[in-house]
């Protein structure tokens, strides 16, 4: 009997796949089980294959794996799409009464459960609840107490009235009973429950919650997959904390609105994906040179151009590190799991304000749409610390004025960080500009002042290098000969891959790097390793390139760019093959 269960519901976009999957994931979470979800989806409102997958265990789960145990298939294509992951003994729940499913063939060795989902749902009050009937059937197959599903249904439908909630509960029971009565099979699954409390959230939600925790009050954005959830999360919620979300007419406007709000003294943010970053790059240099604190979140998806909007990729690193004309100081911070999406967002706001520098907060699609369970203490709001940097009020303004009483927003201090004062502060009136400027913020082409201001802005980065903690996250065996480096969402599958590798007798040291710029010095671990492998979801190895550049040594690369995230078991195999390519050939 496996420790973990891999479950999925799949069908056409518009079939309610997402909400059904979420209801099941929530039921599991409420029952004290760990959950890790993933989505195969198309950016269409209707039409096209889509699936919601849940991996669950009483132990922590950090990744998807290449195995599917139970599949609710609303369409025949759902079975075809998942053939690689289905195995002997996999259970497929389907509705044979559905015209398109009448001739469906259950692959050899798998168990097909033909459940009249729609008819049973109609019995309970409406065919629309057929997916809930399927969830009830799944509860029976997995021996999962259906009361947990009730709690989840209440959460989902309570605002629609008790009748709807009760009908849904009834639907689930009809599905459960149908399986009980019609299939004489002893399913091997037993989803035990625990008393643990978990919260279930995805990376976009964690970023949004992090923004509120950090005191962000202004968010402007333009909807784009897979960053829209950040905006939707904040809409309405940020208002309760004195803030506002503004939907701009495009990303050019979104970043400029955020820039305006930040100059007015608010903690401000915008979030987008690659195509939006392209547009925002226009204003990015202005943000940096006007020394405006701003958090710009890039939830990466597959590119270039429109690429594959609903698919995973980590292809924007070079753009985030080097994008924009001229030389632009910046920070690039990349959370490596869902809970870190929260903490790194808080950190991004502090970095932005302390150093009056734009911060790219970079996540990837897999992080953004993955729902994962955590103990609520993971997001302990008492641990949130705010540092607004050198904000100067009326009482201190005089010490930052020049001899003519003019405030100097770009004064070249020793650490590079100038005083900052908010509009409305008496005697603080000043301008700033995207033109090279003097300490007063006025245009200059004076050669000495140019050097002074460029150096001053760079000095902020230097100060940050020295003052801040840029430590990476480390896992596995610190003395291992094999070192794996990665960034972003690869941390999850890689952590689980370590367990597979250990079982196979391969010790690995794994360093997950959340700071892309400035980034930690990795020369020592790389020198100590016999083999260094950089794992990332892109074709050219952008992170591997900068690591090689940093340490002047070649590294091995594992790249995936088919639009699908790494899976733990697959990654373990690839690492084995990279460490001993010969062994792989002999297999």
């Amino acid at each position, binding site marked *: 009997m496996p420790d973990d269960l891999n479950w999925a519901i799949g069908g056409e976009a518009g079939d309610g796949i997402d909400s059904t999957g979420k209801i099941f994931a929530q039921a599991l*979470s*409420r029952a004290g089980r760990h959950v890790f979800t993933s989505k195969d989806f198309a950016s269409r409102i209707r039409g096209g294959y889509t699936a919601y997958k849940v991996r669950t265990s009483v132990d922590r789960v950090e990744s998807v794996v290449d195995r599917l145990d139970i599949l609710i298939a609303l369409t025949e294509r759902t079975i075809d799409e998942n053939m690689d992951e289905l195995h002997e003994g996999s259970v497929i729940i389907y509705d044979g009464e559905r015209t398109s499913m009448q001739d469906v063939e259950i692959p050899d060795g798998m168990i097909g459960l033909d459940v009249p989902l729609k008819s049973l749902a109609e019995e309970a009050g409406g065919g629309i609840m057929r997916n809930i009937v399927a969830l009830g059937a799944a509860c029976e197959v997995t021996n999962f107490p259906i009361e947990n599903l009730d709690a989840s249904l209440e959460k989902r439908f309570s605002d629609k009235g008790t009748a709807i909630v009760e009908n849904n509960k009834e639907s689930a029971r009809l599905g459960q009973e149908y399986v009980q009565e019609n299939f004489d099979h002893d399913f091997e699954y037993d989803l035990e429950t625990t008393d643990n409390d978990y*919260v*279930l*959230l995805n990376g976009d939600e964690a970023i949004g*919650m992090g923004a*509120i*925790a*950090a*005191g962000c*009050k*202004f968010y402007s954005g333009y909807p784009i997959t897979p960053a829209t959830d950040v905006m939707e999360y904040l809409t309405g*919620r940020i*208002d309760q*904390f*004195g803030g*506002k979300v503004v939907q*701009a*007419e*495009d990303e*050019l*406007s979104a970043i*400029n*609105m*955020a*820039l*305006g*709000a*930040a*100059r*007015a*003294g*608010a*903690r401000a943010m915008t979030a987008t994906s690659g195509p939006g970053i392209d547009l925002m790059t*226009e*204003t990015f240099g*202005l943000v940096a040179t006007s020394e405006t604190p701003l958090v710009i979140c890039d939830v990466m998806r597959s590119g270039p151009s429109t690429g594959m909007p609903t698919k995973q990729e980590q292809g924007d690193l070079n753009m985030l590190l080097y994008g924009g004309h001229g030389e632009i100081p910046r920070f690039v911070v990349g959370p490596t799991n869902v809970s870190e999406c929260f903490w790194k967002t808080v950190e991004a706001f502090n970095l932005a304000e302390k150093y009056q520098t734009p911060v790219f907060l970079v996540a990837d699609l897999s992080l953004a749409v993955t729902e994962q369970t955590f103990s*609520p203490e993971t*997001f302990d*709001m*008492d641990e*949130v*610390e*705010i540092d607004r940097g050198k904000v100067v009020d009326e009482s201190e303004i005089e010490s930052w004025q020049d001899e*003519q009483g003019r405030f100097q927003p770009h004064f070249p201090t020793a650490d590079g960080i100038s005083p900052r004062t*908010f*509009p*409305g*502060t*008496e*005697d*603080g*009136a*000043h*301008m*700033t*500009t*995207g033109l090279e400027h003097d300490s007063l913020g*006025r*245009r200059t082409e004076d050669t000495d002042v140019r050097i002074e201001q460029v150096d001053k802005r760079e000095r902020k980065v230097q100060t940050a290098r020295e003052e801040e903690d840029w430590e990476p996250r480390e896992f596995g065996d610190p003395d291992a000969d094999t070192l794996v480096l990665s960034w972003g969402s690869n941390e999850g599958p890689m952590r689980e891959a370590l367990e597979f590798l250990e079982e196979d007798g391969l010790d690995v040291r794994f360093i997950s790097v959340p700071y892309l710029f400035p980034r930690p010095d990795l020369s020592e671990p790389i020198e100590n390793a016999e083999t260094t492998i950089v794992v990332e979801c892109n074709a050219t190895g952008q992170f591997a390139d900068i690591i090689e550049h940093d340490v002047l040594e070649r590294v091995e690369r594992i790249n995936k760019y088919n639009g699908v995230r790494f899976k733990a078991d697959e990654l373990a195999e690839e690492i084995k093959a990279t460490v001993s390519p010969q062994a792989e050939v002999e297999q």
Partner: protein
Amino acid sequence: MSSEVRFVDFKSDKQPTWCPGCGDFGTMNGMMKALAETGNSPDDTFVVAGIGCSGKIGTYMHSYALHGVHGRALPVGIGVKMANPELEVMVAGGDGDGYSIGAGHFVHAVRRNVDMTYVVMDNRIYGLTKGQASPTSREDFETSTSPDGTNMPPVNPLALALASGATFIAQSFSSDSKRHTEIVKQAVEHDGFGFVNVYSPCVTFNDVDTYDYFRDALVDLDEADHDPTDADQAKDVILNGDKEYQGVIYQNENSVPFEEQEGIDEPMTTVPDGAPDGATDLVREFY
């Protein structure tokens, strides 16, 4: 604010580098007077400027100011005002900045109706890049990049504003100092997006739309029995291609600024030392 503020308080000690005789001098003076006469002070005012000759205004005025990227001044102004509705926000730009590269933002800023003032110095030419056609240049206007004319009708910014749901549309002439100041003042006082297209002649590169031309062509709506609260009359004035008008063309007296509708009533500038009260409830939502 204090009634002691004079318009020169809005003047910086930096001397403008505009060509002698440039319309922008008069435009800027009127803006400073309007700000002073409406009781604003430099410390409570935020000026946003775009790129072009007009963009230099942030340097020559004294206030909080940002001189941004080309065409995006309006979104910056919206962000400033929403983050701190207590500030007086004035956005300045030219016809290229506002009606060409920034045309998209213009339409949406008009729709959004945030309480701010937008002054466009319209000289119907690109001055800073030394004389190319602008979106308001005449169809037969010959320039270095349009030797046979633009072969396109000029943009009618007033019509664009009207069609976008503007609550305040006005036009003025930089050399009619008194009327220009009055009109900008009304725009500042308007509860919503106060849009003023200012004829601000370029003496160096535009020999068609000159001071003389505007002096002859301008009809003052104050003397024309015009009711600016009447949308139909406004439409007639705006779509009449034979004449040039100055004055307040349209004002919706029932205008409620966007930020007010959105319930923003205090500055967003305060941030507690830790997570805000109630933040833990956000975690509980995910149970």
